[in-house]
């Protein structure tokens, strides 16, 4: 099986707040993690392939959204598992990859 690629823009081009409770149309990090990321992550782990997250195509991210998604996943599953399976692609904002990796390590 090939690596799995997940496009954040297919969730929303306007990623918003941290928690779901902050609004129905908040496009929150919590919602993205639970509905999009975690199922794909499990699938990738089972198949022993990488889950590649393409973060391009949105109008921009907030710290709270990124931290909730990737820091949250790291708190739930452990940073070693997350770092082993997740990879990131970005042509628009390559510096965000370092930020995200830091959120995973700091979680």
């Amino acid at each position: 099986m090939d690596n799995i690629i997940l496009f954040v823009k297919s969730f929303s081009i306007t990623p918003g707040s941290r928690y779901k409770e902050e609004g129905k149309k908040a496009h929150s990090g919590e919602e993205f993690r639970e509905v999009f990321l975690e199922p794909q992550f499990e699938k990738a782990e089972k198949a022993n392939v990488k889950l590649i997250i393409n973060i391009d195509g949105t109008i921009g991210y907030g710290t709270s959204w990124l931290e909730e998604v990737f820091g949250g996943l790291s708190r739930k599953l452990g940073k070693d598992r997350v770092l082993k399976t997740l990879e990131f692609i970005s042509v628009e904002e390559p510096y965000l990859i370092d930020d995200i990796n830091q959120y995973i390590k700091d979680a």
Partner: protein
Amino acid sequence: MHKNLKIGLAGTLGILIGFYICIIIKKYTVLKIDPTISFEINPFELFSLIVTIILAIYVARTLSKANDLEKNEKDLLINYLTNFKNEFNQKITYLLEQVEFDSVITNSNFKIIRKKIDTIISLSVEHKFIEKNETYSNELINKVRDIWELFTDTPKKANGRSTAAVKGDIERLRLEQVNKIEMSVIEIEKLLFKLTMKINRK
């Protein structure tokens, strides 16, 4: 007719004066002009002349062109930094006026701000105006990231339903964040100045 006669007389008088002055100079001076011209070619002097001409053309065309190009690149880069500073201040002032800091508008503005400073620094490195891991540029990138984090991880303003204590705490936290943001903006201006000076000295 009377006027023409005057001009004619003045002209004749001028010619006569010139003629006699010429005779007097020839009679009383030893100034002589040799009607022949000697023409000699020294091969070393000729070689030196050719080298000088080639050097003059090289300096004028190649070196001056390279210097002009470098100066233009430097001016352009400094211009980018100045524009960035103005745009950055403008955006930060606008964002600080917003009720909610952690919003889609903030995310969008910071995507542009971070992309812009990253591009300017990449161009400066690419054109060898600064080193790849230059201290000021690294600090600048980190400071912009800090401000982005401060903006997008700030508590929302207290709403009408919050208790007085919660409202007070949220307002205090927000004030702290605003203060940190403004301090970081000053730091960024300082770093931009230092970076501009560094590029200018190149």
